């Protein structure tokens, strides 16, 4: 069969799964007074449509910031405004100031779901398809398989089409950034990434690898000649694209400061709800929130984040390569997720999308990681009533990955990208060849554990003394996995660079 028809089928499958998941419930459905993210997005349409731009981020009599105040960067606000114009055409009640609060109806749900699908179709899906079509040194079959796996990745579908958010927009822009960088169109790449940051500030998790890669590239070209020109061009692009996005807010300094305050709410604490990061897991043992002052917490989390992402970033700056850039995206985002301040459980998507990009290189580990990332969202999804969609899409994803990459057969050291690491371990323990076996059995144990925990969370009621037993155990288990993956990805980046020449020879 031809490549284009296979790609069409892949995209159609992705779309069908997305659309059918969207029949399910959304966050805060029928739960007054606060509802959930669905209401937040609708409320932003209401606010942006009815209020002048100067009031969007300010607490006024018409804009109660306590009730889902706008706390995303300007591009999100513009997107809401655009949706609001369409909503106005269909039914003005949906965005009427004040009176539309908590509006829910079937047609409105359909409209909101459709806006997500359209945004996804315009930004994220094309980026995935182009990325997979232009993968180097890959057979058509592998390209299609990667596209299928990436498009069927459950978490993004469940969060965007179930829970309700527009993550595919910011992640899609970041993906466009990666795509452009891999074709040496550095300026377009930086533009796309700036758009991503200006859509969701969480994209800052990816900013260091982008920065280090581009900086390293400038260094490579020589900071006195071509490199300097490139650096200036990039800097100009970044400043210009930020300026354009923020133009309406540039009238007063107070405006900009207020937006920034809304974007980075430092007073909201180290973590909220149950997140699979280190702070939340540690607080099972020590109540960090009570032991330390918020300022210390902030410093501590900053220090840890910085230390853990340092190695990968330094390697990337010194020896920039595309492969290393992708790995750095993963490990930096993962460090941020595990150690930084005020992390949401949904932020795991920022780690997952770069992992998706490597699924054709290390299928087993990537599938594993992606399964864990979906599992870490389980408490949230249960709260939203998306259990069925969660189980079905996860099983579908596992089936697709297992059959299209035959992950269980590809467990040699090369397939796991651990060749150079085990070579250097063999320098101390000559007979060390255990990686494939260890990884394979760990995978099976972990998948079984996740299955059992899912089953228990879904069916059992927790004992009265420990009402959060299941969410907490899900978080802790996922957190342990993520720590393991952090070591794994960092090990690849570090050993890869040290033995870079050896690897080339072997290949």
């Amino acid at each position, binding site marked *: *069969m*031809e490549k284009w*028809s*296979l790609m*069409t*089928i*892949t995209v*159609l*499958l992705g*779309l*069908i*799964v997305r*659309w*059918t*998941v969207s*029949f*399910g419930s959304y966050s805060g459905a029928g739960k007054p007074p606060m509802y959930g993210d669905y209401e937040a997005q609708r409320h932003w349409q209401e606010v942006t449509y009815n209020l002048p731009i100067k009031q969007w981020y300010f607490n006024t009599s018409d804009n109660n910031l306590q009730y889902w105040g706008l706390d995303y960067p300007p591009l999100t606000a513009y997107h809401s405004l655009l949706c609001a114009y369409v909503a106005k055409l269909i039914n003005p009640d949906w965005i009427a100031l004040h009176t539309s609060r908590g509006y829910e109806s079937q*047609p409105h749900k*359909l409209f909101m*779901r459709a806006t997500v699908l359209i945004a996804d179709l315009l930004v994220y899906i094309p980026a995935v398809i182009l990325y997979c079509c232009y993968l180097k040194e890959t057979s058509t*079959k592998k390209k*299609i*398989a990667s596209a*299928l796996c990436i498009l069927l990745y459950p978490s993004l579908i469940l969060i965007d089409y179930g829970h309700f958010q527009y993550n595919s927009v910011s992640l899609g822009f970041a993906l466009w950034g990666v795509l452009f960088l891999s074709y040496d169109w550095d300026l377009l790449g930086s533009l796309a990434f700036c758009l991503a940051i200006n859509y969701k500030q969480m994209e800052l998790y990816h900013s260091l690898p982008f920065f280090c890669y581009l900086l390293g590239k400038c260094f490579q070209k020589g900071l006195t000649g071509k490199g300097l020109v490139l650096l200036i061009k990039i800097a100009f692009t970044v400043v210009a694209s930020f300026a354009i996005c923020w133009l309406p807010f540039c009238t007063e300094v107070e405006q900009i400061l207020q937006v920034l305050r809304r974007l980075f709410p430092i007073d909201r604490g180290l973590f909220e709800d149950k997140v699979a990061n280190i702070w939340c897991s540690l607080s099972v043992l020590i109540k960090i929130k009570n032991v330390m002052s918020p300022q210390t917490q902030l410093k501590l989390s900053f220090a840890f984040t910085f230390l853990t992402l340092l190695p990968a970033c330094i390697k990337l700056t010194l020896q920039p390569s595309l492969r290393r850039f992708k790995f750095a995206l993963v490990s930096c985002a993962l460090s941020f997720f595990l150690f930084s301040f005020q992390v949401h459980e949904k932020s795991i998507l920022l780690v997952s999308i770069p992992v998706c990009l490597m699924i054709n290189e290390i299928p087993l580990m990537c599938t594993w990681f992606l399964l864990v990332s979906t599992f870490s969202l389980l408490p949230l999804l249960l709260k939203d009533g998306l259990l*069925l*969609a969660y189980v*079905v*899409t996860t*099983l*579908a994803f596992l*089936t*697709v990955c*297992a*059959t*299209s*990459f*035959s992950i269980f057969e590809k467990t040699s050291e090369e397939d796991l990208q651990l060749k150079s690491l085990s070579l250097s371990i063999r320098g101390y323990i000559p007979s060390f060849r255990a990686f494939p076996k260890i990884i394979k059995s760990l995978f099976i144990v972990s998948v079984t554990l996740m299955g059992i925990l899912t089953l228990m969370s879904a069916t059992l009621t927790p004992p009265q003394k420990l009402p959060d037993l299941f969410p907490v155990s899900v978080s802790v288990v996922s957190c342990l996995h993520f720590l393991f993956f952090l070591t794994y990805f960092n090990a690849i980046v570090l050993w890869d660079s040290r033995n870079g020449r050896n690897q080339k020879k072997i290949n």
Partner: protein
Amino acid sequence: MAAAGGSGGCWFLALALGVSLLKCLLIPTYHSTDFEVHRNWLAITHNLPVSQWYYEATSEWTLDYPPFFAWFEFALSHVAKYFDQEMLVIQNLNYSSQATVFFQRLSVIFTDILFVYAAHECCRYVNGKRPGKELLEKPMFVLAVLLLWNFGLLIVDHIHFQYNGFLFGLMLLSVARLFQKRHLEGALLFAVLLHFKHIYIYVAPAYCVYLLRSYCFTENKADGSLKWSSFSFLRITLLGLIVCLVSALSLGPFAVLGQLPQVISRLFPFKRGLCHAYWAPNFWALYNAVDKTLAVVGIKYKFLDPEKIPKASMTGGLVQEFQHTVLPSVTPLATLICTFISILPSVFCLWFKPQGPRGFLQCLILCALSSFMFGWHVHEKAILLAILPLSLLSVESPKRAGIYLILTTTGHFSLFPLLFTPPEIATKILLMLLFTVYSFSSLRALFRKEGRLLNWLETIYLIALVPLEIFCEIVFPLTPWKLKFPFIPLLLTSVYCALGITYAWLKLYVSVLTESVTVRQKAE
């Protein structure tokens, strides 16, 4: 598609699992009144003694399937009580709690396992004349996708709600058994199937003639014609025994109770009109359309007196009782005769020029299609009866593949009016595109060397379905005609699809009849 690697039957399992998961995702979608029909049957069979099953009439959706299906509902109801007791109360009309929906949908998904098994059996017996190719281009793989991911079955069973999956499973399994020369098993399966849903009686002639000709007569003469002396009484007795036993098991209890006339009257409601509310795209749709056009033209040019024209025919296309104005009205007997005549050539062909199981399959498809074309009160869903078996032939020859593409695309398109709620419009279009893109590209890849599968006229006809859909679903609701002539989209869809299906039927008929001639010439 998913299974690019893997070995042996792994890809088949992946395909089956994939489609089952998709079916699970369709659980919260819209369901039609058929959902309530089956809920009601669950309640009837659960609460009442057998003697009351065919008399109970609290709901308008009375039990009108043969006894085996009633027993099937009876068995299901014993699982249903663990989900929600309330759905088993006869008086709870239109009851659809979440647990009820969940149970009913899951019961369809689980009984589909039989269909999956049948598809697996069929795939084993498809002509794998070019082995060693890439998996995606093996006839086996293509057939598996065409059967398992069939668009019509997906939307009729898993959105609209019916239990066709396992019934078609029984049919395909019996076909597969005949291919394997396990004739008695095939006959048994078909007899059982008939007592599950009697619509399959349309293809019974093919079974009768084939079993009689190729099983009861053990030998042929050298020129391929019948050798009377080889008739085996043992075999026909066995066949007769099977049919009688199955019938006795099914209808026996009702015969003992003296309820047979009541059961029969429930099973064959001839009081309904010639066409269903939405005209199935068959010969009668064309007939009605011609009649209507003639009436309109006649009134305009004063050939007809508007006073004398029956009212119903002018106001609706949605009216059940459709009275013809110009052309003679059609009686059930007339449709029966038409059906009989149209089936006859294919049956003769099967008798006089037997070509083994493949000939039988062709005859079966022709029977299904002919009765779809001329039957009384045919449902649009009945087209699946022809589409699914034709899938088996489509991967074997480019000619059949061409016919298959026309028939499936138009047939599936004609199912569109089944789903009309806004969220499902997107679902049906996406699913249809998925299946159509796959069937076209895979069959074209399969017969790459044989050239084009469709000629330009057929291509244009099929492409025109796109503007038709856009007109019916998007443009028309915005026009002022929406209130005055609400039936126009349905009318257009059904007449346009009727053209394609008639064409495919004729083409298949001609190719089967002419091919059998060439086969005979070769033999000579």
